[in-house]
């Protein structure tokens, strides 16, 4: 039984291995980059648009709205990073409908790399937004005693991001593998559909958590109090 697609090796030369994780990651990157390049080659601003332009616009504005909902008031600044994370993880799990495909996010190396990207980019966005001193001061909040705990939380949430995505993807593939040997006909299809749903949810969670961490590191997270609603006696 395989734990991850790292163990399928297509080509090996000395220490350089070309395993399934790398191959499928490159395939996804190629498909997404070439696809969006082809779609955005002829953009139009008038009323007649191509089907694919509409599709991409729905995706981009949807991601933008979600980022804004988390509390980042200028989503354009962050959509390059957060949108890429979401689209990659979502595509990686959506493509599991293709036979012979193994999701590259089912390998701990991929998810650890993605989580490390989040760990590095959160301080970068924080420093960009409020300066080095201002960002470092957030580690001392609420008091100085909390400094080690803030550092620990920084490391542990990166670990949690990586293991959460890996565990979900790996368990999906493994459960389907086990079911194929027990009830090989209909039931694995149902589990595959469920796997598509959990894959989308995990992609959403991954990017939303990254957005929440960025929002916590930047000034933009300062809560703006909503206008106090008039107290209504009715309702209960």
């Amino acid at each position: 039984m395989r734990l991850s697609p790292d163990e399928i090796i297509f080509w090996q030369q000395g220490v350089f291995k070309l395993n399934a994780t790398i191959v499928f990651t490159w395939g996804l990157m190629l498909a997404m980059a070439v696809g969006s390049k082809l779609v955005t080659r002829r953009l139009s601003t008038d009323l007649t648009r191509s089907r694919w332009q509409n599709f991409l616009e729905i995706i981009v504005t949807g991601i933008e709205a979600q980022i804004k909902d988390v509390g980042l008031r200028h989503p354009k600044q962050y959509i390059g990073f957060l949108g890429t994370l979401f689209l990659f993880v979502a595509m990686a799990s959506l493509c599991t409908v293709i036979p012979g495909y193994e999701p590259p996010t089912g390998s701990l190396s991929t998810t650890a790399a993605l989580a490390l990207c989040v760990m590095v980019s959160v301080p970068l966005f924080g420093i960009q937004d409020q300066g080095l001193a201002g960002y470092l001061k957030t580690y001392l909040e609420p008091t100085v005693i909390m400094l080690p705990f803030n550092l620990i939380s920084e490391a542990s949430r990166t670990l949690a991001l990586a293991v959460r995505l890996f565990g979900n993807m790996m368990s999906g593939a493994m459960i389907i593998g086990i079911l194929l040997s027990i009830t090989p006909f209909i039931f694995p299809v149902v589990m595959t559909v469920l796997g598509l749903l959990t894959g989308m949810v995990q992609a959403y969670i991954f990017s939303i958590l990254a957005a929440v961490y960025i929002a916590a590191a930047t000034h933009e997270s300062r809560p703006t109090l909503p206008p106090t609603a008039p107290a209504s006696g009715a309702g209960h």
Partner: protein
Amino acid sequence: MDSMTIIAVASIVIAGLTTGFGCMGPAFAEGRAVATALTALAQQPDASATITRTLFVGLAMIESTAIYCFVVSMILIFANPFWNFAIAQAAGK
């Protein structure tokens, strides 16, 4: 019992216990979370978008604790480092 048998027995028993207990806590927690979210939805249907989003994020975070236990038990069964070490020892003898 030689060391291989002890490692195998310990791994299998602990993997079962890990998944069993690791599913119990998150199951209770998710049940409570969904019940509370349903109450909130019934009281404030207007806020359904926010409630549902928060519920999904929260459920995924709760569920990840179960996933950690699952990963640990999978490692114990399929990629046990002690097992590999014992095999290497036996082969080297």
